[in-house]
């Protein structure tokens, strides 16, 4: 996509002397990154100021199944509700669940990954559990749990977050293993540092940038998971969500007629997840110039 742009800009000639600030600048100066960050910012603003942008959609309206127009930018559904308002309010749910679930996954995944990387006995158990979790079909598993608990934004967050950590753990563990083998870790051990201190003060700082990448990538997956569960009827019945708009179209049988009812929430999912993924991947590339060639 923009790999050539990246190789020219991400490794400026001043690379060895880059300060923290200028590497952030180099990161943000890439066009794909700037665009992604802009999209993410707009989404965050939409989520925060949803009540100012559109009234929360509820009840039935007179304009049923209207195509997009000046009055209804994204058209209306079979109940006459405004799709634009549904998409705006859906941004809230998607962002909240995406971020909160990814934070749960990051905390669990980092703790397990680091413990596995440094403490041998834990590694065996953690690897088996991670492998098992990665081998199972996650969506059916989440469906099963979400069906039993009464679905709300918080239960969905917990379920999604709880099943997203294995990928983070695997990533952090592999990086942690490399760092655990470095001489300065041996040095710390010789100086008498405890295992806890080595993991939290020496290894953790070295994986922080990987954690930032993971937050973005895990949040992307969490948004997709939430949309999937909502689409299957397991979303929070009191909160608008992009998956729920698609479900409404599916249930009312308007998929083939009202293209606007499915197109706009789909675009919202695509934009949000694509931006988060791109921002995450480019951050990863900036962090490690050796990867740019691949």
């Amino acid at each position, binding site marked *: *996509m923009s790999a050539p742009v990246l190789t020219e800009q991400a490794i400026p000639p001043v690379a060895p002397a880059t300060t923290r600030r200028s590497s952030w600048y180099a990161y943000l100066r890439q066009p794909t990154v700037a665009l992604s960050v802009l999209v993410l910012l707009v989404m965050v603003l939409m989520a925060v100021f949803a009540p100012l942008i559109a009234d929360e959609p509820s009840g039935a309206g007179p304009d049923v199944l209207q195509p997009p127009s000046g009055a209804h930018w994204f058209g209306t559904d079979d109940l006459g509700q405004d799709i634009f308002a549904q998409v705006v309010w859906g941004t809230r749910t998607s962002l909240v669940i995406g971020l909160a679930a990814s934070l749960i996954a990051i905390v669990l995944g980092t703790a397990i990954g680091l413990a596995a990387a440094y403490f041998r006995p834990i590694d065996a158990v953690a690897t088996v559990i991670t492998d*098992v979790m990665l081998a199972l079909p*996650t*969506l059916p598993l989440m469906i099963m*749990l979400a*069906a039993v608990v009464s679905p709300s934004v918080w239960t969905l967050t917990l379920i999604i977050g709880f099943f997203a950590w294995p990928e983070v753990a695997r990533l952090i563990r592999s990086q942690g293993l490399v760092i655990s083998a470095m001489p300065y870790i041996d040095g710390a051990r010789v100086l008498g540092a405890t295992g806890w201190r080595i993991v939290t003060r020496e290894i953790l700082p070295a994986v922080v940038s990987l954690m930032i990448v993971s937050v973005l990538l895990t949040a992307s997956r969490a948004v997709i998971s939430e949309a999937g569960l909502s*689409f299957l009827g397991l979303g929070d019945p009191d909160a608008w969500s992009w998956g729920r708009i698609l479900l409404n179209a599916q249930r009312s049988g308007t*998929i083939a007629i009202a293209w606007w009812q499915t197109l706009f929430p789909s675009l919202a999912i*695509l934009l949000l997840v*694509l931006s988060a993924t791109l921002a995450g991947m480019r951050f990863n590339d900036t962090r490690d110039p050796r990867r740019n060639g691949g």
Partner: protein
Amino acid sequence: MVRFVLSRALKAVLTVWIAITSTFFLLRLLPGDPTTLMVEGDMTPEMQAALLKTYGLDRPLWEQYVSYLRELVQGNLGISFRQIQPVTDIILDRLPWTLLLAGSAFVLTVAVGIPIGVTAAVNRGKWLDRALQGFGISANALFVPSVAILLLVFFGAQLGWFPIGGAIDPDTRGVGAYLSLAHHLVLPVLSLILVQLGPYALTLRTNMIEVLGEDYIRAAQARGLSARRRVWKHGLRNAILPALTLMGLQLGTLVGGAVLTETVFAYPGVGRLIYEAVGQQDYPVIQGAFIMLAVTVVIANALTDMLYAVLNPRIRL
């Protein structure tokens, strides 16, 4: 080889056992456990107790667990709440459709992904390579129902090229039935391929670039082997192995995607069954469907690993 197959089979059994055990206890520790779900509000306490006794829910947890496992081993997944029928029968009715859908998507992704990945690796930096990189990254952001609905609206409803739902036209016989089957399969399979293909071809490309830089490929070049033979015969053989592992790991995602695609196209597989069961709050069916899908994925994953062993001379013993 025998030892490898045995240890892989053991790992598969262990995975399924851990999955079943953890979900059994998780489901019973969650706030809305099966007891409260099944017992309707207006029952007298005596009726509730009798009902719980019938289903064995009044016994200690570990006793329930042992009998649950015993039943599971015999293939008993319980009775559906809504259709008074064994869950196993209901799911086995639907499973072949999901296997057909996910299996076709798997095979076609590999078949199409190999030439794309290899061509992109050989023509590094050219348009196909750049397109693949863009596609590979954005595939991550594709939401299966969105893709499925787009295909349904465009190729199904607007152009009328393909049916918009179902798996087969019941009036067809013989060859016509197979054609109808394939015709109904096109759009659901295509939605899965579109989501799976990018990352797969991209992995293959990366592996291929790495392999093509190795000494034995240069040696082959020095011996005067044609570029085509070097790439497709010597290189591909090694580049394909990590890509195969990736496909094995992606099986869970593939099945998750199938659940969503089936829902959009009213395809009569396990996924559509799950969607219906969610609407009817038929918990034994949902739980049974998860277990069956998990077993399917784990078996398919084990088979992929064994295929890997067959293709990789370093494991073949």
